[in-house]
C-alpha cells in the first residue's frame, strides 16, 4: 500500500505553510478593499481595525456609481469596448502575420523578423510624446480610437504567434494540403487556425488584460470624464477631505471584480500561457 517515496521528492508541512502565506498575501488586498468600503471610517481607523465586512458596501457602491463628474458605468463600458477591440484585432493580425513568418518563404522575411525583435527592445515611453502629437493631428485625442488604433498590433503578439505556429503546426500537414491543391488562404483557414485556437485565446486574454490595466496612455489622451476608462476614472475618486478611503476602495473593488470573475474561468489557461511561453521561448 505504502509506496516508497524517493527522498528528494518529499514535501513538508513548511512548504504548505509558505504556500498558504503567499495565498493569503495574494488575496488579502482584495478582501481589504471590501472591508474598507463596507465599514465606517471609525471602524477602519481604530486599533486594531475591523477585519470583518461591515454593512455599508451597497451604500458606498451607490455613491461610486453616482459620484458627481465620475461616469463609472460609462468607464466600465469604455474599458470593455477598448479591451475587446484590441484583443480581437491583435489575435487576427498576429495570427496571419505570425503564420507568414513561420511557414511561408518570401524575400525580406528574415529581415522583417529581426526588425520586429529589435523594436521590442525599445521602451514604450520613447514614442509617447510623438504619439500624442500624431493623435492630435489625426483628431483622435479624447476618443476611444486613440486607445484602440495604436494597440491593434504589437511586435510581441506577432512574434509570439510565430513561435506558437512554428511549434504547433507540423510542416508535413501543410505540405500535404498544398500538394492536394489547397491555396494558402485555404490552408490558413482550415488547418492553421483550428490548431492554434487555444493559443489565440490566451493571446487575446493577455491583450485584454493589458488594455484593461493600461493607465499611462489613457490618462494622456483622454480628457473628458465620460470618455475615461476605469483606471482613469478611479483616480477621480480620491478622498477630498480627511482620510475616508471608502469611496476609492469601493471603486477599486468594483473595477477589479469583473477581472476576478473572469479569472475564475480562465485562470488555468493564463497560467499555462505564461509557462508555455517561458519554456518554448
Amino acid at each position, binding site marked *: 500500500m505504502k509506496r516508497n517515496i524517493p527522498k528528494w521528492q518529499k514535501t513538508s508541512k513548511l512548504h504548505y505553510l509558505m504556500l498558504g502565506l503567499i495565498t493569503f498575501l495574494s488575496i488579502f*488586498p482584495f478582501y481589504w478593499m471590501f472591508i474598507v468600503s463596507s465599514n465606517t471610517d471609525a471602524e477602519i481607523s481604530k486599533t486594531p481595525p475591523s477585519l470583518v465586512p461591515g454593512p455599508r458596501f451597497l451604500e458606498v457602491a451607490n455613491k461610486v456609481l453616482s459620484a458627481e463628474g465620475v461616469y463609472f458605468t460609462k468607464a466600465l463600458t469604455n474599458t470593455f469596448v477598448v479591451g475587446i477591440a484590441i484583443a480581437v484585432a491583435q489575435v487576427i493580425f498576429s495570427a496571419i502575420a505570425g503564420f507568414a513568418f513561420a511557414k511561408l518563404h518570401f524575400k525580406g522575411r528574415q529581415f522583417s523578423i529581426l526588425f520586429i525583435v529589435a523594436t521590442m527592445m525599445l*521602451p514604450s*515611453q520613447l514614442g509617447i510624446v*510623438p*504619439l500624442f502629437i500624431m493623435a492630435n493631428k489625426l483628431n483622435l485625442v479624447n476618443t476611444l480610437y486613440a486607445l484602440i488604433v495604436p494597440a491593434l498590433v504589437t*511586435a510581441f503578439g506577432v512574434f509570439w504567434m510565430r513561435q506558437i505556429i*512554428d511549434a504547433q503546426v507540423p510542416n508535413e500537414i501543410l505540405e500535404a494540403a498544398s500538394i492536394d491543391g489547397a491555396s494558402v*488562404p485555404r490552408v490558413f483557414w482550415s488547418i492553421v487556425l483550428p490548431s492554434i485556437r487555444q493559443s489565440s485565446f490566451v493571446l487575446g486574454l493577455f491583450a485584454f488584460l493589458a488594455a484593461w490595466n493600461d493607465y499611462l496612455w489613457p490618462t494622456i489622451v483622454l480628457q473628458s470624464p465620460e470618455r475615461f476608462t476605469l483606471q482613469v476614472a478611479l483616480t477621480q475618486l480620491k478622498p477630498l477631505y480627511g482620510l475616508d478611503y471608502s469611496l476609492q476602495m469601493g471603486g477599486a473593488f468594483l473595477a*477589479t471584480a469583473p477581472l476576478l470573475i473572469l479569472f475564475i474561468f480562465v485562470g*488555468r489557461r493564463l497560467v499555462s500561457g505564461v509557462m508555455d511561453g517561458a519554456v518554448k521561448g
Partner: protein
Amino acid sequence: MTLFKEGKGRTKAPLTPWKKKEKKQLPGVASLDGRWGYPAIAPFFLIFIVFGVAPVIYSIYIAFFKWDPLGESEFNGINNFTFLLQDSDFWIAIRNTFSIWALSTFPQLIIAISLAAILRNKRLKGKSFWRTILLVPNITSIIAITIVFQQLFGRDYGLINGILSLIPGVDNIDFIEGVIPSHIQIATMITWRWVGYNTLIFLASMLAIPDELYESASVDGASKWQQFKYVTLPSLKNTITFVLIVGTIGGLQVFAEPQQLNAEGGSTKQFLTLTLFLYNQAFLNNKYGYAAAIGIAITFIVLIISAINFVITRRISGEGSR
C-alpha cells in the same frame, strides 16, 4: 515580450531558432506559395510602422527642438540634452528609479525561486490551485491596487504601521515622506504584482530539469540545499537573466504607483521616477522637446543595461562546465 527567454534556451526552442534551422533548409513550407507572405504581413506592418516605428523616429527629431505644442517651435540643437544632464531632477529620478528597481527585483528573485522550488515537487497536493492563485495579483487593476497599498501603508491609520507599532519602541513610519520608506512602499506594490508571475517563469524552467539529475544527486548523498545549489540554480542562469532584463525594462516604466502617491513625485521629489519625470515635463509643463530628450535618455539606459547583461551572461556561460 515578457514571455520569452533571452539568449540560448535550455529547452527545445531557443529565442532564435530560425538561425539554426536555416543552415540545413529554409524554414517553412516550400510547396506553399510564398508570395502570399506580403499581403499577410502588410496590415500588421502598416500599423506597426505608423504607430510603433514612426513615433520613435519622430521623437529623435523633436528632441532637437524647443517644441511648444501651442505656439512656434524652434530648433534648439543639443540644448535639451545638455540641460538634461545638468537638471538635478533627472539625477534624482535616476536614483529613485534604480533604488525602487533594486528593492523590488532582488526580493522578487529570492521569493520566486524559492516558491518555484516548492511547486516543482511532483508530490505536492493542489498544484494547479497554487499556480493559479499566484497569478491573481498580476491581473488586477493597477490603480486599484495602488489605492489599497496606499491605505495599508498610511502613516496614522495604516494596517502596516498598526502591526509595526506592536513592536515596542517602533514609531510610525511615514511611507510617503521618507525617501527609502517611500521606495519600499512602491517596491512592495511592484513585488506583489509580479512575484507570482516570475515564480511561474522559474517553475517552467525548473520543470525542464530532468528528474535523473536530482535522483543521482540524492543517491550521492546531496542534501536538499546542495541539490538546490548544484542542480537547480545553475540551470536557471538564463531565466534569471531574462527576468532581470524584463524587470529592468519594467522598472524604467514605473509610473502609476508614484504618480498616485503624489503627482509631483513627492514633496522633495523623493519618489520621482524617470517615466513620471518625462510625463510631467511633457504634459504638465508642455516641454515636448525636453520630454523627448528624456525618452531618448531612458532608451540609452535600457541599451547600456542590456549590453552589460549580455556581457555578464556570456562570461558566465563561458565559465560553464561544458
